C-alpha cells in the first residue's frame, strides 16, 4: 500500500440483541425455525396492528451505552424509515433517527504498533430487522421469510477513526467481545447476529478533508472484513492514481472473487422520508433506571485483563486471550478457585491443551468436555508431582474422552510418577550399562548427551519417572 495515502475507515455494526421475543411483537426470535413460523400479525404488517416496544431492548442498549462510556439519552424517539421492499412488510422500518438512545461513546483498541488508540462511537440506536427474500426454489419467483422481521438490532456507528483494515478488525473484535460480555448479543456472525458495513475512503497523507467514501456491505467474518477493506483501499488508490474519481456508492463484497462490486450509487439512493413513528411514544429513561442498569454491568474486558495481569501475574498476551470471552475468563477463574494451581500453569493449560481440544471438536467453552473443576484436579496432580507435565497431556486426552477425573485416569492406567530413588537408580544403572560409548563421550565433555540419557530413562519408565530426580541421579552417577 502506498504510504502517500492515508486510509480512513468508519464502521456500522448491526448487532442482534439477545431477547427472546421481537422488538415490537411477542413473536419468538430463535434462529433457524421453518420459514414464516415466527412471524405474528404485527411482524407481517397486517392492517390495524400496532407495535409495542419490548422494554428489554432499552435495558440492553443502556448497558451497551454505559459500557462504552457513552451518554444514554433520557429521551429517544423511534422514527419510520420509508421504502418499499418485499421483505419489509409495513413499507417502513422502525428505527431511531434524530434522537438515538446512545451517543458519544468511545473505546480503546490496540493499534498495529501495539499502542492504545481511542475510537469514537458516534451513536448506537435501536431498530427492527427486515425479513429475508429467498430466490432459490421458487421457479423464477421469489419467496419471503419474515421470521427475522422485527428482530431487535442495535446499530453501533463509529467515528471515522480507523486507519487500517487491521484497526478496523481490532475495533470490531472489541465490540464483539463487549456485547457478548454484556450478554446482550450472542455475536454469531454465521447466523447474522453480528453484521458490519464499512465506510472506506482514502486521502493524500496530510490532507484534512476526507476523501469520497464507499460503503462496503456483506462483510460476514472478521477475515472477510479485513480482505474487503484492503481490496477497496487498493481499488480507490489505483483509481485516483490513474486519474479517476471515487464515487460515493454502496459496494458488495464478493468473498469468492475477493473483490468489491458496485451495488447502487448515491444518485439512486432512496429518500427515506423519516418522521417520528406516531404509533410509539418517545422512550423516556430515568436516572434511577440508568443507575440500576449500571449496577448490573459485569466486569468489562479491559478491567478484567488488567486484573489478571496484576493479580495473577500473567503475561499480558495470555491475559488478553483469557479475557477475550467472558465464558473463557470465568472458566479460567473457576479453575483457579478449585485448586491451588499456579495461575500461569492454569493459563497455559486453558490457552493450550483445552482451547486446542475445543477447537478440534468445534466446541464452545460452555460445552467443554472437561469442567473447570476437572481441569483443576489435573493441575493439582502436576503440582504435587503425582504426574509429570507430559503424562498430564495423556491424562487430559483420556479425561476429554470421558474416562473420568484425573485421579480416575491416573489410577486406572497406573500413571503415577516414579519418585522412589532406588527404583530410578536401578533404571539409570541399566541405561548406563547399555550405552558405554555415550558414557565415554559424555565423560569426555559432551555435556549435551545428558538429554539422551534422560530420554532413555524416561523411555524405560514410560515417562513416569520424576524428571528432576532422573536428572540428578544421572549426573551423580556419570560423575
Amino acid at each position, binding site marked *: 500500500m502506498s504510504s502517500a495515502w492515508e486510509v480512513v475507515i468508519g464502521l456500522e455494526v448491526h448487532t442482534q440483541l439477545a431477547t427472546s421475543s421481537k422488538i415490537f411483537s411477542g413473536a419468538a426470535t430463535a434462529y433457524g425455525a421453518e420459514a414464516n413460523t415466527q412471524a405474528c400479525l404485527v411482524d407481517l404488517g397486517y*392492517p390495524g396492528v400496532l407495535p*409495542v416496544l419490548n422494554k428489554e431492548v432499552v435495558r440492553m442498549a443502556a448497558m451497551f451505552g454505559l459500557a462504552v462510556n457513552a451518554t444514554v439519552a433520557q429521551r429517544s424517539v423511534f422514527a419510520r424509515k*420509508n421504502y*418499499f421492499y*418485499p421483505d419489509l412488510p409495513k413499507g417502513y422500518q422502525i428505527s431511531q433517527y434524530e434522537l438515538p438512545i446512545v451517543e458519544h461513546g468511545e473505546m480503546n483498541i490496540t493499534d498495529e504498533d501495539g499502542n492504545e488508540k481511542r475510537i469514537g462511537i458516534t451513536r448506537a440506536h435501536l431498530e427492527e430487522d427486515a425479513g429475508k427474500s429467498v430466490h432459490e426454489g421458487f421457479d423464477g419467483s421469489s419467496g*419471503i421469510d419474515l421470521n427475522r422481521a422485527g428482530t431487535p438490532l442495535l446499530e453501533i456507528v463509529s467515528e471515522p477513526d480507523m486507519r487500517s483494515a487491521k484497526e478496523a478488525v481490532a475495533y470490531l473484535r472489541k465490540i464483539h467481545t463487549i456485547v457478548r460480555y454484556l450478554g446482550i448479543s450472542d455475536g454469531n456472525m454465521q447466523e447474522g447476529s453480528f453484521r458490519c458495513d464499512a465506510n472506506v475512503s482514502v486521502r493524500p497523507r496530510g490532507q484534512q478533508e476526507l476523501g469520497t467514501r464507499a460503503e462496503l456491505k456483506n462483510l460476514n467474518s472478521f477475515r472477510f472484513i479485513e480482505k474487503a477493506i484492503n481490496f477497496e483501499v487498493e481499488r480507490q488508490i489505483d483509481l485516483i492514481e490513474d486519474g479517476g474519481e471515487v464515487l460515493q456508492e454502496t459496494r458488495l463484497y464478493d468473498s469468492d472473487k475477493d473483490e468489491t462490486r458496485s451495488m447502487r450509487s448515491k444518485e439512486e439512493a432512496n429518500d427515506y*422520508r423519516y*418522521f417520528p413513528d406516531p*404509533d410509539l411514544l418517545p422512550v423516556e429513561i430515568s436516572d434511577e433506571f440508568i443507575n440500576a442498569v449500571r449496577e448490573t454491568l459485569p466486569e468489562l474486558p479491559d478491567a478484567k485483563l488488567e486484573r489478571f495481569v496484576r493479580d495473577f501475574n500473567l503475561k499480558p498476551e495470555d491475559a488478553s486471550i483469557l479475557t477475550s470471552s467472558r465464558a473463557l475468563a470465568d472458566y479460567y477463574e473457576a479453575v483457579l478457585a478449585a485448586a491451588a494451581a499456579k495461575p500461569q500453569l492454569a493459563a497455559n493449560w486453558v490457552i493450550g491443551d483445552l482451547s486446542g481440544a475445543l477447537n478440534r471438536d468445534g466446541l464452545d467453552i460452555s460445552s467443554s468436555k472437561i469442567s473447570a473443576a476437572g481441569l483443576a484436579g489435573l493441575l493439582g496432580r502436576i503440582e504435587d508431582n503425582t504426574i509429570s507435565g507430559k503424562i498430564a497431556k495423556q491424562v487430559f486426552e483420556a479425561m476429554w474422552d470421558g474416562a473420568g477425573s484425573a485421579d480416575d485416569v491416573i489410577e486406572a492406567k497406573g500413571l503415577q510418577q516414579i519418585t522412589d530413588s532406588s527404583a530410578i537408580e536401578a533404571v539409570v544403572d541399566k541405561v548406563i550399562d547399555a550405552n558405554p560409548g555415550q558414557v565415554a563421550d559424555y565423560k569426555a565433555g559432551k555435556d549435551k548427551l545428558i538429554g539422551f540419557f534422560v530420554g532413555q530413562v524416561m523411555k524405560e519408565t514410560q515417562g513416569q519417572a520424576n524428571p528432576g530426580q532422573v536428572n540428578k541421579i544421572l549426573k551423580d552417577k556419570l560423575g
Partner: protein
Amino acid sequence: MGKYTQTLTELKAGLEQADFTSVELTEELLARISAHDKKLNAMITVTADEALAAAAQADIDRSGGKGGAMCGLPIIHKDIFCTRDIRTTCGSRMLENFISPYDATVVENLAKAGAVVLGKSNMDEFAMGSSNETSFFGPVHNPWDLDCSPGGSSGGSSAAVAARFAPAATATDTGGSIRQPAALTGTIGFKPTYGRVSRYGMIAFASSLDQAGVITRSAEDAALMLGAMAGFDERDSTSIDEPVPDYVAGLGQSVEGLRLGIVRQHFDEGLDAETGARVKNAIATLESMGASTVEVDLPNIDMSVPTYYVVAPAECSSNLSRFDGVRFGHRAENAEDLLDLYCRSRGEGFGDEVKRRIMTGAYVLSAGYYDAYYLKAQQVRQLIADDFRKAFADVDVIVGPTTPSAAFKLGDKVDDPITMYLNDIYTIGANLAGLPAMSVPCGLVGGLPVGLHLVGGHFDEGTLLRVAHQYQLKTDFHQACPEDFK
C-alpha cells in the same frame, strides 16, 4: 310501533324486562336493513347469520343471568374495524376481499359486552373523505334527502343510525369523521379523547389523530356504548391507562354553573346563517338551563385545516405503504417485475382521494420539504393544542357549530377537494389537540339536520355527555326521524 324506533337504552330495558328477545329485535332490524338499504347503501356487509347466532346466544346468556352491559343489543361496525372471519374492506378496492385473521380491540370489547353485530357500514375509502363519495362501494345517501351526502367518512354509520337500522354504530374520527356525518344526519356523534379507545385493529389513516367513537341517537346511548368500548389496551402504545368512569351514572347532573366557551372565529364568514342561528339557539337553551357563556380566543385555530392536511397525509402515506400487493389485499395480475407489481397493485387498488393524500404526504415528508411542511405543521399543531389548554382554564366546554352548513348534494363538492376539506373546519382542532368532542342535533335547516359541536378537556368525556344529555332532556331535535324511515 316497531322496536327500531327505540334507543339503545330503551331496547336494553326492553330486553331486561323480557318484552322481546334479542333474536326478535335482530330479525326486525335485519329485515329493515334488507328492505331499505338499497336506497341508502349504508352497509358494505350484512352479517345476518352471525347476528342471529349471536342474538340467540345473548338470549341464553341473559336468561342464565349472565351477559354484559350490551347483552343482545344490535350494533353496526364501521368497516374500518378488523373483524375475524368477516371481510373488512375499509371502503377500498384494495381490501375488497380482505378477511382479517383477528378482531380489533373495539370489536372484542363490544362482543364481550354482548353486543350483536348486524354488519359493517360503508365509509369513505380508508376514512379519507367528508361525503362518503370516495368509497369503492359507492356513495351513501342521506336518509333525510337521498340526493344529499350523509357526510363522511363515517357516512354509513351515521346514515344507518339515522335510518333506524340500528340504535348505535361504531365510527372513527381523524378530522371530524364522526361528528360531521352525525351533524348532517341528525344523530349524536362522539369522539373520545385520543388514547381513550384502543386503535388496535382499526385500520390506520393518520395514527396521531385517529380515534374510535360512536354514532347513536341519544347522549345516553353514546355513554352506554363508550363505556363498553373504552379502556386501556396494552396492544396500543398510545392508549392511556386511565380508569373508565361510569358515563351513564354521571348524566343526571344539571348544567347549572357550567362555563361554555364560544370561539369567535367559529361564527365568522363561512358559516351558513341559518345553521348559525340553530347553534345560537341551542347555546341560548343551555344558558336558560343555568350555563354561562364566555368568549374564548383560539388565536391559531384558523391554521387547523392546513395543519391537518399536512400531518394527516404524511402519516397516511406511510401507513398505507403496507398495501403493496405482496401479502394481502389487491394484487395486480401478471406483474412484469416487482416495481410493476407495486405500481399497478396500488394504482388499481386505491381511489383518487387516497392517491392524492399519499402523494401529498410523501411530498411533505421528502428531503428538503420536511422542515418547511411536516415539522412546521407539528409546531403549529402544538400551538393549537396550547391554545385549547389555555382556553380550558376558563371554560368547561367549548361550543359552536359542527359544520358550516347542513348536508350538501352528492356530487357537489367531489371535484373540489379544498371546499370539501373546509367542511371539517370546526372539527379538526379537537383532533389536533387530542380532545374529546361531539355533535348533538340542534334543529333543521331546510328540512336537513345541523349539529351543535361540543369540545371538552382531556378525559372529560363525562361533562360532554352530561351537557348533551341534559340538552336532550329539554329538546326533541334528536327524536326527529327522516320521513321515509319512520
